[in-house]
């Protein structure tokens, strides 16, 4: 495994990322009017913080960590058919512990001991229409982790890992009402892990570039797809969604093999400083952390959504050896959950190490509703 140049910051960036994503993956519960109470219950659950040194273990760490209070899996994939049509997939899973595993003996299988939530978004080749689906479940037979089968599942969605020949890769099956994807993902770069620090109650890793091969099935056809994906994993003392902080997340895959993650942390719903935590992973897998001073961000375009909120949909990113323009390729999707989130695939072009590059990515925005100075 490779440490980031400043791996301590890697885990912070991961935490921020996953908090944002967790805001995205609780829609069904919100619709059911239950989520506030359930998440409060989760927040009150007496899970022991993770302590002691840890070593990233793959592929096992693709699987669940039941002793952790919460965990997330989040995948952004950028796909292309043999005919050149482009699709983008965002798939997220989250698990919130309600009752610690050691306190579950003797309980009814129907007791609520864990919440599982997930979201699937497929941005189609036209860059506008979206197929979306959410899942929300309790543990009892409808969601969970089978360490023997090496499978994490939520209803018919599944994540498989550790089979013969898969190495550190994984296989994902997810679907919406009119779309089903089955993707096999193989990491092209070593995972970036969080700091192996006894103080770290939150742990995880990022796979900044995985090659993707699989199928996309729609009512009209089943097509082969290939592409590139980004995977974030986090488990431990992850705060539940909500609160006064908002996050923006941008992941980029450049044509020269570079991958970039940018997380902006801001106060929700108001102007003020945003801090940036960024990771640049070179074609050779060497990662470096960029703090605020090493990255200049300029918003090139704000776009008004259907509800009147304005979103920064085009960014210019300037660092020591790159100058990139990013624009949301699709109209974008706003999900009005506990934490309203706007999401869209992006295209990117510019310069990296003096050479022209282009690429794809995903932009996720939160906290732009009811902004005040």
């Amino acid at each position, binding site marked *: 495994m490779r440490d980031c140049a400043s791996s301590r910051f890697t885990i912070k960036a991961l935490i921020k990322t996953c908090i944002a994503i967790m805001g995205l993956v609780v829609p069904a519960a919100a619709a059911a009017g239950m989520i506030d109470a359930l998440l409060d219950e989760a927040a009150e659950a007496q899970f022991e913080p993770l302590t002691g040194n840890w070593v990233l273990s793959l592929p096992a760490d693709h699987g669940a960590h039941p002793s952790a209070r919460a965990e997330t899996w989040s995948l952004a994939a950028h796909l292309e058919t043999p005919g050149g049509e482009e699709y983008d997939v965002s798939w997220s899973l989250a698990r919130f512990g309600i009752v610690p595993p050691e306190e579950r003996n003797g309980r009814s299988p129907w007791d609520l001991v864990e919440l599982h939530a997930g979201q699937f978004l497929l941005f189609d080749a036209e860059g506008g229409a979206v197929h979306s689906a959410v899942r929300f479940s309790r543990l009892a037979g409808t969601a969970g982790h089978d360490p023997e089968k090496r499978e994490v599942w939520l209803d018919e969605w599944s994540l498989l890992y550790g089979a013969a020949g898969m190495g550190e890769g994984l296989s994902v099956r997810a679907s919406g009402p009119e779309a089903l994807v089955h993707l096999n993902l193989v990491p092209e770069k070593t995972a970036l892990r969080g700091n192996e620090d006894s103080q770290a109650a939150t742990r995880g890793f990022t796979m900044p570039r995985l090659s993707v091969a699989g199928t996309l099935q729609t009512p009209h056809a089943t097509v082969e797809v290939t592409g590139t994906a980004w995977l974030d994993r986090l488990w431990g003392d992850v*705060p539940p969604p909500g609160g*006064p902080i908002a996050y923006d997340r941008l992941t980029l895959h450049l044509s020269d093999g570079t991958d970039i993650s940018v997380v902006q942390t801001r106060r929700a719903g108001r102007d003020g400083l945003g801090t940036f935590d960024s990771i640049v992973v070179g074609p050779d897998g060497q990662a470096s952390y960029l703090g605020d001073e090493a990255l200049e961000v300029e918003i090139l375009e704000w776009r008004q959504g259907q509800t009147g909120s304005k979103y920064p949909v085009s960014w210019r990113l300037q660092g020591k050896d790159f100058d990139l323009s990013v624009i949301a390729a699709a109209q974008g999707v706003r999900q009005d959950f506990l934490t309203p989130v706007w999401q869209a695939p992006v295209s990117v072009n510019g310069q990296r190490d003096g050479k022209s590059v282009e690429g794809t990515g995903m932009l996720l925005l939160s906290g732009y509703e009811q902004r005040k100075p």
Partner: protein
Amino acid sequence: MRLNPLGLILAVLLAGCREETEGSYRSEVGSVPAMEQRDGDPDAGYDALVNEPYVSCGIPYEAFQRIFPETDPADRLPGRDGLNADLPYAFTAHENNDGVTIVSSNCLTCHATRIEDEIVIGLGNEFADFTHDPRRLALQAGTYVRGNAETQAWERWADRVEGIAPYIQTRTIGVNPAPNLTWALMAHRDPETLEWSNAPLIAPPPEDPLPISVPPWWNMRHKTAMFYTTIGRGDHSTFMLLASMLCVDSVEEFRAVDTYAGDVRAYLASLEAPDYPFEIDTDLARTGAKLYSRECAECHGEGDDYPNRVYPLDEIGTDTAYARAATDGSRDRFYEWIARSPYGDEQSAAPAPGYIAPPLDGVWATAPYLHNGSVPNLRLLLRPDARPNYWRHVRPRIYDEAAVGWRYERLQAGQDAVDDAAARREIYDTTLPGYGNKGHRFGAELLETEVKAIIEFLKTH
């Protein structure tokens, strides 16, 4: 009190028309007269210092625990109550009116330092890092804030951090931005009601703070005015309360804190410098005592005889930026704010255009030296031509018994030559405005043996 006579007349004539008193808040260089100070109970003062919530906004405890999950046992202080007993010395907890437990930074953030396993209260923290944007910590803490009561408590603190953040980021780790912090807070508060405004009510100070080294509290017992330019005149107890301005939002809150301000001052005045912890060459120190009397005592005092004198900039020769900014009129709106506020009157903020020669009690512990912390050790203070233009502390810090100060590394280039932000922040670059290391050339003519002897004597001081 050495108020400019013309300013004094104007102040009297224009009472009630204070916006026209610009230029009155000054003292002359030279002797600083004593002002009557409040009595207080030192023991009660210590208790208040380490337990009372004089900084009443901060991070909700639940979030604080996520950021600072464990307390180093050596960071615990005796005499602390309840939750405070388990918190690091620089933090104080209290429950606000909404039932939210808040953890706030206290005075010891800047005014205490751990040397090995001992917390030395009153020793300025010369390793504190004010180079980062504090909004980053506020945002980090906000990540873990949940529920309306916690969110409101966090927002109260975050609003203030947002207001002051642009004005308190130093160029170098170790120096302190306290004056600019105070001015920035005043810019956001009504002086009469103390109500906070997210938008500045008067022009804030310049964004690049002039650096200072935190003076040791144990010198309070000798001094008739506070701070390098002797700006703090009048009732020191009340003037000190400017340190609690971050969260005092009403006169009522001010008065609540003011009830124990006299006790706190009495505690500070009771502090004595720590003993030098290493071996001392007593023969050499005796030689040094005579040299000190001849070369240093006139300005810095000897025993309990401390002259309390401010010296003009052209005589002391040290970096002029801080004293000039204090007396060129560019800060007068803040002195007027004090005069209109419960924190003082027209006589409270009256800097002189120079620097006071401080008492040298425990000077061995207070490196780096000069008002801006630009000289790494005592030897270099007395050897002005050998001072480095660019330097940084050796980490982990190691005490240099020969030179008296923390070991440093001389560098060939300043901050401009370094791309890496973290490495840049470590560099003390004396070419930056306000960071200059010139002046105080009073040891330049001394023999090397004489310098060594004076340094040895100062270990006993």
